[in-house]
């Protein structure tokens, strides 16, 4: 036998040996799935990979990936579903939205079967960002002397700057987001080391107005000073409270009651009731007012506020209070209380033109109390502030709707 023949024999033996099957875990009723190392991690996103080691005896109904900054679960974390085909062993998907640059994520593959939900092993990776991510972490701030355990920061904005009012001690800060400057302003005058229960604010012509639960004084902040505007009407805070301004007038609502405040005259007028027993949140789009009421019903009124009509149902969870804001002709609601006072971190985008809802990638911070979230909007962006510790360290996130993936 010549050398060629010998080499051919050896190659055949190698191929024969390579065909032997690998050992795998014992077949179970549920599938055994394994997440593989993510690939192509760059500033545009990440490719997630998973492998079906065993398909199991039960039929897989849905298969996908779930990820979060802590251990993810499919009810409270970001997910993506992949078309499952029994003959396919390995799955990959390129994700271009929702990953914040510099954040460490945990990702798992998951499968729904007839009787079980299976989570794969967990893989950790550090994100280099994603093409369509509305979230960006800004610098951390340190508000010296602020102790969060005794209160929370309440966010508001006029047309120039954001403001944070801390309920304990009434520390008040102005945030210039363009120049990244924080200026300590005069403290809220009604604090006296007690939580004053700030519940609603609004902005009329760059003047800020404040409603507190524990005081009937109606406060205005303008020209770097606090002004006592006298008594406000009685509100039933257990029915929720909303505050907004439209057409140069301020409005506060609680339950079905709605009050208009005229800045020029200083008078309060009772408006036509909102057709709901409780209000959760509100947003203004093109002078149209949208209010989420009881039973997830969304009502709309024009700027005259004399005619409310039902437009849609809020698709998210509705417990406690929701945050609500509007940017660029769309409204955003979410981050509500969930069980155990843990914030549900989903935010829903409402498009009034299409009367449609779109669930966005989750708010990046994990397990926060809603009372600790500070929100204000300036120049087409929303800013979310959350405490990093109980002692003044404060993290600010920018929410930019321009960076959202356009799904429709």
């Amino acid at each position, binding site marked *: 036998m010549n050398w060629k023949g*010998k080499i051919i024999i050896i190659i055949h*033996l190698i191929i024969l*040996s390579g065909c*032997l099957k690998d*050992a795998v875990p*014992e077949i179970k009723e549920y599938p*055994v*799935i394994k997440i593989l190392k993510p690939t192509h991690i760059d500033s545009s996103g990440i490719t997630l990979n998973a492998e079906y080691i065993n398909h199991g005896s039960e039929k897989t109904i849905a298969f996908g990936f779930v990820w979060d900054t802590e251990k993810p679960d499919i009810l409270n974390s970001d997910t993506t579903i992949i078309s499952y085909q029994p003959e396919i062993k390995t799955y990959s998907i390129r994700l271009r939205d929702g990953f914040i640059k510099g954040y460490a994520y945990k990702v798992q593959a998951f499968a729904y079967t007839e009787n*079980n939900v299976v989570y794969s*092993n967990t893989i950790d990776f550090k994100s280099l960002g994603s093409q369509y991510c509305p979230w960006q972490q800004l610098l951390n701030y340190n508000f010296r002397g602020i102790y969060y355990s005794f209160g929370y920061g309440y966010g508001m904005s006029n047309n120039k700057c954001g403001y944070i009012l801390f309920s304990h001690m009434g520390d008040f800060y102005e945030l210039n987001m363009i120049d990244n400057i924080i200026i300590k302003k005069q403290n809220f005058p009604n604090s006296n080391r007690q939580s004053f229960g700030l519940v609603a604010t609004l902005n009329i012509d760059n003047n800020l107005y404040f409603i507190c639960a524990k005081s009937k004084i109606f406060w205005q902040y303008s020209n770097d000073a606090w002004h006592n505007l006298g008594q406000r009407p009685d509100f039933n805070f257990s029915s929720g409270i909303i505050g907004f301004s439209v057409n140069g007038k301020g409005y506060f609502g609680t339950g079905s009651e709605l009050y208009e405040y005229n800045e020029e005259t200083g008078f309060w007028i009772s408006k036509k009731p909102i057709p709901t027993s409780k209000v959760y949140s509100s947003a203004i789009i093109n002078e149209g007012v949208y209010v989420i009421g009881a039973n997830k019903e969304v009502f709309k009124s024009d700027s005259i506020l004399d005619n409310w009509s039902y437009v849609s149902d809020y698709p998210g969870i509705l417990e406690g209070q929701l945050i609500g804001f509007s940017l660029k002709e769309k409204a955003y609601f979410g981050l509500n209380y969930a069980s155990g006072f843990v914030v549900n971190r989903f935010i829903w985008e409402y498009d009034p033109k299409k009367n449609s809802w779109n669930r966005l990638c989750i708010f990046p911070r994990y397990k926060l109390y809603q009372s600790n979230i500070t929100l204000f909007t300036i120049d087409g962006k929303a800013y979310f502030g959350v405490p990093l510790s109980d002692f003044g360290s404060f993290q600010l996130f920018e929410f930019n709707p321009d960076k959202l993936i356009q799904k429709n």
Partner: protein
Amino acid sequence: MNKLFYFILASILICNLTVSAQKWGYIVDDSSSQQVIIFDQGQRKNSLICKFQKNKNSDTIEYPPDVLDEYGFEDGRVFFSKDILIDSIYKKYFLERLAHGKVNLYLTKENNRNRFYLEKDSSLLELSKKSNVDLNSDFNYVLNDLINDCEYIKDAVRLAKYNKRSLSELINQYNECIYKPFPFFKYGINIGYSQTGITPSKASKDTLIKNSSFPDNKSSCFGIFLDYPLSFSNMTVHQKIYFQKNAFSYNIRSENIEKDIVINLMSINLPVLIRYTMPVKRISPFIDAGAIYTFNIRNRNDIYVFEETDNIIDIKIESDSELLTRHQLGYSLGAGLQIKVSYRNSIIWEVRYQKLYSLSIIPDTYNLNEFQVIAGFNF
């Protein structure tokens, strides 16, 4: 670098000592034989001159092949003065006799080249090295012509190499004319069936590992082997290199937790064995034993943990545990039959037991036991 220098220096010194070593021996001339101290000057100089002292205190004497008929060392090497033809000139040289009997074999070294001479019926014939140009000068061809009267050495003549050991062995076998396997370097391929068991190390402390019981894995293996003769005895150094894939899986369940240990190996195995083959003409039994080294080129050790709570199954995979080490050492014992199919080729059947130990300071590892049935063919 320093080590290399000292090694070379030491080698040179040893060589020099060897070359100029003085040994007791004898010289024979026309009239007498006497015991003397002979200088062993190396193969080439020993062929040209016999340098000796009659005793330790006497002067050194140098005799050319014209003066002496024969001299020899006490270790058995004997040199005879013979007329040989080199470059068309007959000249006397001291030729070392390598084999003695019906046919004598002689060796001399000239121009740094060994020259072998066969003496039969008092005529001396040089054995030229194999040449592709002139087949008539092929030493195997010449030998086959000269020593064809012993049927037992026909195969040996074809296998003989143009070197001192091989030709000496051949001529000795011819002179004795009894059957004896002619040792030669063999190589070939192996293919086999392997049944591999995996057992926890005795020092193992982890309950899961200690109590695990894997079913044996059945797989094929293939490779090549080399077989070197050891000093022209019936012993050889048998070296294999073979490739094998093993896969093991073990499952255990308790309450809501299920665990699977999954081990996938792809290994290159290198047993080095000392083999004794019985000198039987056609079917020769053999036994061997030796050490085995295994390199697991693929060594996937995964422990899957399935935790079930309210129909939600959370899978954890521990992939970083080294249940088997990448390098393993052990021993190998085997026996078999070597069936001759031609003067050079054989089919080999063997059974083998091997034990492979993980090389780890961590006690929670596994060892392998292998039982193999192997077929081989040497080219």
